[in-house]
């Protein structure tokens, strides 16, 4: 039953990669004008809105989980730390790849590291993303060292692991929020439903939620793809934290809209209000309602479904900030060109493919099936019955 499914996805990947290869050729031989629907009025499109903003957001599981295990010493999360760090590392590498497509002069991508402008948010983001990618590489390194049996390198890595994690959390806090700060400079251009002085806070808080959702999502996918039994008790705890983080974000967001008097824009019919509602319903209302229900919260399928909703909701949020909210002031509707979509699709597909390869050849998952911790097993049998969407 698994084989035809795999072949289908492989076929999809081949098609996506072929499209991506042709789009890449166009991008680098004809330029941005020929390969995108970007223009003077709309200089940032899908590659920034999705590949960069959503990519960094979805890699946020790395810093939240390493902080949980190493800083807060909550040891029982250790088994899922490797796949999460791998996801984060891949995420950042792919963000850099996407930037090479989007930058007009990709071969100068290193310039911000030597030509400083500390007043620029972009400068700060460039430094943080560079350093954090290096931190993630070092956090991921033990997995490679283990495979190659490099004992000395392993010892050195262990000695610096705590400062490394602290540095990673700080860098993540800075640039996750700074991606929101990028838009503080456009008060006259970004629609009031999204422009807020609290943008950096919203981007940071939602990155935490999405990081948790991503960890749930990817544990579930790994269990399907690699037959690694799900760490259900851990995921239930993640689900609870996800619920709380969504509630905090939701309340703060509502307060902000209310205090800025922006709620009245919801009465203006139009696609801005519609897409705002899509974002709120997918990312907040539905997952909160689901996770408040104990049966959903404590079932594999329920958690997975809620996590996917959160991901879709906040992807919509990032696209709303970067695209929907900027259209009215630009006086146009931006629809990405097929080349933009092909490149983005290839980057996402590459992410899945590399994760699969790494899971196959590197010790990402603990040996043997992961039995649920005994102390939480009590109410597990009851949950089984309420699983949905996980039957396959």
């Amino acid at each position, binding site marked *: 039953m698994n084989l035809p499914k795999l072949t289908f996805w492989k076929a999809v990947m081949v098609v996506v990669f072929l499209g991506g290869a042709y789009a890449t050729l166009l991008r680098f031989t004809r*330029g941005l004008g020929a390969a995108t629907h970007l223009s*003077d009025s709309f200089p940032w499109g899908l590659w920034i809105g999705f590949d960069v903003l959503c990519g960094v957001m979805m890699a946020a599981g790395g810093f939240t989980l390493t902080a949980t295990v190493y800083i807060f010493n909550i040891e029982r999360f250790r088994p899922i730390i490797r796949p999460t760090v791998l996801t984060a590392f891949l995420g950042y590498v792919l963000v850099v790849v996407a930037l090479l497509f989007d930058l007009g*002069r990709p071969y100068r991508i290193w310039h911000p590291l030597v030509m400083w402008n500390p007043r620029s948010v972009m400068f700060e983001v460039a430094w943080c993303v560079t350093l954090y990618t290096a931190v993630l590489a070092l956090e991921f390194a033990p997995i490679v060292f283990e495979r190659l049996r490099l004992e000395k390198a392993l010892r050195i890595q262990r000695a610096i692991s705590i400062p490394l994690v602290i540095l990673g959390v700080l860098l993540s806090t800075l640039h996750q929020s700074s991606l929101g700060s990028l838009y*503080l400079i456009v008060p006259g251009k970004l629609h009031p439903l999204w422009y807020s002085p609290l943008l950096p806070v919203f981007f940071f808080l939602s990155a935490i939620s999405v990081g948790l959702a991503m960890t749930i999502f990817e544990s579930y996918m790994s269990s399907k793809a690699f037959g690694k039994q799900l760490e259900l008790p851990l995921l239930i705890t993640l689900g609870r934290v996800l619920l709380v983080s969504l509630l905090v974000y939701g309340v703060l967001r509502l307060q902000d809209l209310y205090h800025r008097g922006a709620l009245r824009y919801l009465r203006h019919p139009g696609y801005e209000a519609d897409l705002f509602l899509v974002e709120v319903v997918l990312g907040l209302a539905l997952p909160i309602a689901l996770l408040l229900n104990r049966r959903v919260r404590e079932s594999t399928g329920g958690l997975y479904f809620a996590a996917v909703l959160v991901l879709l909701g906040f992807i919509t949020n990032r696209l709303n900030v970067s695209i929907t909210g900027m259209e009215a002031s630009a006086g146009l509707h931006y629809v990405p060109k097929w080349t933009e979509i092909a490149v983005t699709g290839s980057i996402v597909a590459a992410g899945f493919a590399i994760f699969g390869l790494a899971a196959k050849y590197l010790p990402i998952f603990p040996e043997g099936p992961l039995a649920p911790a005994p102390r939480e097993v009590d109410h597990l049998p009851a949950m089984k019955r309420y699983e949905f969407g996980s039957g396959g």
Partner: protein
Amino acid sequence: MSKAILYDATICIGCKLCEKGCAERNKLPYDDNVAAEQTMSAHKLTFVMISGDKFMRRLCMNCEDPTCASVCPVGALRKTASGPVIYEESRCIGCRYCMLACPFGVPKYEWGKVLPRVRKCDMCADRVAAGRPTACAEICPTGATKFGDRDELMAEAKDRIAKAPNQYVNRIYGLEEVGGTSVLLLSSVGFERFGFNSPTEPLPILTYRVLSHVPDIVSLGGVLLGGIWWITNRRTEVAAAEGQAKEPGGKEPNRKERRQK
């Protein structure tokens, strides 16, 4: 002494010679088709906006505290002491944040090129440095575009409004907008008609307010995270030591051993 351009729409006759002079100085093609374009672009760095029987020049405002220069991650855009905001092509990585951020929509991109540049009016920085007026001011047949010291032009603009208050709206655009600009505009109708709509506050302060907290976040966050680790780690160490002590002959695990588990 900071230089500036004063454009008085009431004297402008819409001849578009300023467009032509600008194109020549920047070695850009200029013909009837380009003249008809009512927008700035990589090949047209200034244009005379025609709205009914009113004219208004659009060009880089060469702000006193330029948003573009503040957002540029590599410092490719820079305000010079003499007024012009200049662009250093060799630094530019092509992130186009300046285009997103500029409140006047000025920086434009060479979308058709494989290795594009940002293009914008740089207030003829080379000419200004040599003590000459900008190309647009030099070619203007009526004196509608005038080049000079910013302070003197400001005084002159005030004087013109005071002498003929019913010919002008009582506003010198660029005096305070986004913290002041090196291009000053006078008009007989409201500037909103030409799409001008900017706060008086310089925009770079909006991001600087957040960025200025970075050192605080790093130092405070570092201490906080380190402290939390120290407390939780000590707690686990003690628990582990107590657990081992109960077993006969159990030895206290050191930190390294425990982390290796």
